[in-house]
């Protein structure tokens, strides 16, 4: 509603084929197993089943393997014989088989793979649904999912033709891109000569920009995600939203006529829009008063259903808004936003630090406290030694001593560090870096790079102008730049990088920014694809986020697309937000 945008924005390719592919594969796999009569969630113990075969559809995780082994061994103990089948998605890992073997059940199971890489969540969002990617790669330095990313790209390439331009930044982006190119070379022939439908691809590592992911979200879709958690494109609205005693599951995508108009809006304008919308709806209902029989018949058969549907959605979103308002209009939230904006702008750091300290002391929320600490650290290139110690001590006192290990993780990944203590490498890691001789070993030290690496946020922000100069009030209803997704206070770094590179058709002129971002940038043209910027597909960009992307980033790039006549398609390892990122760092009690 707020921004009309350009009219020549191209149409995105059709993801229907992707959905069909996934569905057919799964049906084929499950049918091989004959009839599946009951589905259980692997996380909880399966209900006692008399079925003589079990089929597990799982991610290749060691923990899950042990769980399955336990079930089989329990069956054996009680003298039951069943058939067991494990379907790994997206692929089987050798380590999993090894665990099954060590647990003595390898001979009892048959294994299969479901090469399911891409789940289209919406017309422009594809998710790999790999939330563990973030921790596995960025914290543990485990490269196992890079192969999956490369295969996902290969699949997209085979369905939608070659990309004429590939850009990227980040070590993982580079490795994924290279591995994908290798795969393409090996499987020469497929997808070649296809008419390209997606012109550009941009790959980005999440660690290029942690700041954006750590901010509180204020566009509607982001807020809904922060407040209610969107899972696989749908959300459970609880009784406080539905104003009844039951929860309702709602699909959130472009098909929802109400949602699609407010998802990208700043929250402050959503309420006004919804009430306008309900007045319009009422007017449409009211029209039937002056109708004759024939008109009434038409109305009932053609319009009423649509109106009722819209009515239902409208009341759900209004309920959601009220629930969000209750939480977010509290003074605490206002103060938190103020502190957050100060951190982004780099003003009143002392005051913000005290705010965070009070936040911890009052046990407001363990995840929120952690998020604020990280935001402080990452915007300030680490905490000064005194704050670093005292905030952590306070945190342990408030939320429990087990977070000692959480802090270790956060330091390792570079989210919560101490200012330039110089030698931050631990004994083992420096040993590793000494051992680095060959190309392959180089990869591991990069996994630890974040330790020694600085975020340089302040300098980057200055170079790219991430903090808009405000003259007067920022009009959130008529945004002028991507900063609107953070109330006009900050242009998301990740999106700004993409904007700049697309504008320059490369990294030329961004050398200093690249240096501050620790390099690993690339820009490659596919010589086999004809390059003509006037063609529609050239204005379609696949934005790949390795380690997750937020709804705020999606909203910002949608806005950019409308402004510049681009169409962005998002491919992410998972949808993320600050809570999910923090939770991934927490060292749970086993």
């Amino acid at each position: 509603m707020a921004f009309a945008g350009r009219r020549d924005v191209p149409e995105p390719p059709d993801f229907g084929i992707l959905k069909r592919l996934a569905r057919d594969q799964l049906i084929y796999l499950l049918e091989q197993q004959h009839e599946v009569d009951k589905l259980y969630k692997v996380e909880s113990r399966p209900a006692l089943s008399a079925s003589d075969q079990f089929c597990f559809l799982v991610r290749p995780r060691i923990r899950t393997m042990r769980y399955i082994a336990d079930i089989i061994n329990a069956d054996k103990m009680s003298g039951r014989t069943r058939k067991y089948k494990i379907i790994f998605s997206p692929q089987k890992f050798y380590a999993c088989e090894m665990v099954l073997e060590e647990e003595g059940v390898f001979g009892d199971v048959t294994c299969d793979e479901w090469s399911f890489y891409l789940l289209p969540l919406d017309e422009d969002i594809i998710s790999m649904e790999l939330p563990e990617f973030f921790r596995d790669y960025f914290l543990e330095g485990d490269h196992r999912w890079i192969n999956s990313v490369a295969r996902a790209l290969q699949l997209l390439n085979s369905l939608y033709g070659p990309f004429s331009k590939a850009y990227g930044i980040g070590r993982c982006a580079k490795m994924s891109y290279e591995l994908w190119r290798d795969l393409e070379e090996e499987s020469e022939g497929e997808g070649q000569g296809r008419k390209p439908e997606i012109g550009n691809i941009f790959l980005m590592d999440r660690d290029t920009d942690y700041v954006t992911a750590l901010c509180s979200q204020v566009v509607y879709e982001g807020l809904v995600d922060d407040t209610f958690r969107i899972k696989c494109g749908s959300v459970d609205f609880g009784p406080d939203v539905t104003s009844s005693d039951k929860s309702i599951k709602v699909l959130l995508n472009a098909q929802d006529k109400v949602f699609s108009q407010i998802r990208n809006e700043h929250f402050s304008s959503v309420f006004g829009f919804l009430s306008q919308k309900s007045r319009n709806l009422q007017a449409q209902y009211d029209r039937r008063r002056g109708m004759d029989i024939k008109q009434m018949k038409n109305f009932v058969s053609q319009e009423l259903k649509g109106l009722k549907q819209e009515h239902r959605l409208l009341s759900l979103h209004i309920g959601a808004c009220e629930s969000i308002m209750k939480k977010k209009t509290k003074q605490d939230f206002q103060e938190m936003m103020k502190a957050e904006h100060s951190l982004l702008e780099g003003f009143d750091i002392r005051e913000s630090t005290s705010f965070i300290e009070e936040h911890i002391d009052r046990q407001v929320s363990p995840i929120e406290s952690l998020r604020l600490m990280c935001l402080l650290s990452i915007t300030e290139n680490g905490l000064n030694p005194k704050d670093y110690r005292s905030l952590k001590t306070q945190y342990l006192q408030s939320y429990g001593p087990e977070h000692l290990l959480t802090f270790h993780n956060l330091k390792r990944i570079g989210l919560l560090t101490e200012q330039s203590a110089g030698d931050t490498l631990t004994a083992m890691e420096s040993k590793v870096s000494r051992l680095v001789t060959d190309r392959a070993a180089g990869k591991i030290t990069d996994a630890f790079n974040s330790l020694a690496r600085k975020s340089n946020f302040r300098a980057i922000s200055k170079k790219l102008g991430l903090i808009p100069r405000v003259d007067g009030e920022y009009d959130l209803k008529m945004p002028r730049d991507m900063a609107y997704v953070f109330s006009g206070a900050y242009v998301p770094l990740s999106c700004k990088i993409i904007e700049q590179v697309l504008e320059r058709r490369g990294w030329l002129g961004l050398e200093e920014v690249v240096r501050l971002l620790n390099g690993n940038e690339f820009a490659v043209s596919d010589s086999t694809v004809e390059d003509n910027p006037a063609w529609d597909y050239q204005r379609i960009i696949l934005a790949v986020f390795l380690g997750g992307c937020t709804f705020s980033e999606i909203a910002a790039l949608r806005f950019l697309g409308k402004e510049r006549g681009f169409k962005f398609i998002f491919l992410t390892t998972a949808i993320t937000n600050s809570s999910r990122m923090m939770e991934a760092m927490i060292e749970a009690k086993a």
Partner: protein
Amino acid sequence: MDCYTANWNPLGEEAFYRKFELYTMEWSLKEDLRDCLVAAAPYGGPIALLKNNARKEKSPSARPLLEIYSASGLLLASMLWKSGQLVQLGWTASEDLLCIQEDGTVLIYNLFCEFKRHFSMGNEVLQNHVLEAKVFHTEYGTGVAILTGALRFSLATNIDDLKLRRMPEVPGLQKPPSCWAVLSQDRVTIVLLAVGQDLYLLDNTSCSVVTPPGMSPSAGAYVQMAVSFNYRCLALFTDTGYIWMGLATLKEKLCEFNSSIRSSPKQMVWCMRPRSRQRAVVVAWDRQLMVAGNSKECIQYKRLTIEVLLDRLVLRRLYPLAIRICEYLRLSEIQGVSRILAHWACYKVQQKDKSDEEVAQAINQKLGDTPGISYSEIAARAYDCGRTELAIKLLEYEPRSGEQVPLLLKMKRSKLALSKAIESGDTDLVYTVVLHLKNELTRGTFFMTLQNQPVALSLYRQFCKHQERETLKDLYNQDDNHQELGNFHVHSSYSEKRIEGRVGALQNALDEYYKAKNEFAAKATEDQIKLLRLQRHLQEDFDKPYLDLSLHDTVSNLILDGHHKRAEQLYREFKIPDKRYWWLKINALATRGDWEEMEKFSKSKKSPIGYLPFVEISVKHHNRYEAKKYAPRVTPEQRVKAFVLVGDLDQAADAAIEHKNETEMNFVLSKCSPSTDAAVAEKLNRARVQLLKK
């Protein structure tokens, strides 16, 4: 028109047939085919013939002779049969010959009579012997079905992935069935057998009697059955000369026919021409041939693809011809020439008369970097032939390092395999090698090997984190990584049930953190030990759970239960910052409703968090009366807010007016309701006007 119809003869009323010779068989057989075991491969493939297989004569001079002919009767190879008594011959889809012995052993030869391998159909077959056997083809590959002397059926659906299935017993079966066949339905193979006038269907779990639809009740006993190549159609022949033709699912009859020939036929087969709409059954007696069928729709696909044709040529080692055909058909390199060259190379490595060096060079010369060539496959073949050195030489030509790994492992070149796996960037492959090494090497050597391979080491550590916690400790120990050792012990403390165990683990962690010079972690762990011990005392003293609480919650709980002294003690011992302690204490006191204690506390010394929190917390607990006590003590900057909170708009207005702060005045105004607070509103409006005048 004469010339077209002259050699056509009438068949029945509507159909005509003609006979002509396609080619003559080159062979000159002296024996009667009746006395030989014969097997012809599908799609005009080779024909195998076993002569002198009669049971009685066992003298070495009269050993059976196995001969393999091309479809046109050219002798391809032959050999004297020296193994056990053969019951049945059959061909696989890839033209390997299956020789099924009486004892259930199946020997596999290629079409040059070269032995490939053997397998057994199991103990039951071994004990009871093979009475009859059939070789069949499904989408899963080539299978073998056995009827044993005990009249039980055993099946293997795919001989390349051998899974033996013993079928259930047929109730009341006293003699071998008159005829039987293997069916494939819904991806399951089943056996259909006839005993007299009854038909039985045997699947994995049960045996059931079936009746074909539209079967004439006076049809008589079944003597012969035939299944079409695609398993879709079934024909049954009875001793009254009646033929039933229908779907193999036994759900539909296609047609029936009465031949009025009562003797049992020698052979009955389905006859379907590719893409023809006609299907028919051909029945042969000694001197008679009959075709029965209708002309309903039937679609059959051309099964022999160009790839299979090329495979056949390659199997016959006609490499140049195959390459010519590829070139003629303009097949892509990967599909065509490279594949054939690769086969040639696999044949080449078996030539024992040439040195490793020579062979490797010859192969590389011819193959070069042809796309689609897998040097690792060729190397694997070399290794299978016992030429390890040649295999290693060939692997060096393999550009994809990942492809080299499995063979290197097989050849026990594990360390080389490890570097190749790491080079490939495929984590799973690295895992494969690491876990392989773990089982192969002694622990010491294994660790040493990992030391030099950081990528592998890091992956193994990941594995240990989930699967072998103790090994993880050893790994860290070896590196003197005290920080991680400390973390390790903290982590283990979680799973300790007893408090002594927990303290012990934390003590270990503490030592390691000191060694790692991580003072912060050491101090935190020390505090944690202290807290645990204290919590145990509290638990004993008050008989309430305190373990697992954070310091904050411990103190908070103490206050909630009114143990102010103990709380005070912890506050001092752990040097809890004043601000936190005040927040915590007023929160707990308000929750407890101990307003008296709160007031006392507020006067104990100057509050480090000011007095607004006192107001807020009282209001939060709906105690305006108490809240009002603290409002006047709030700092002037926050006083307006405090008075608004307690609902004293008059005082709030006064404070705002005193501050001469318009925002504050507006804030208070917004809280005024016209009916009750008119006076306050007026006061504020007046002050605002005053302020604006200046």
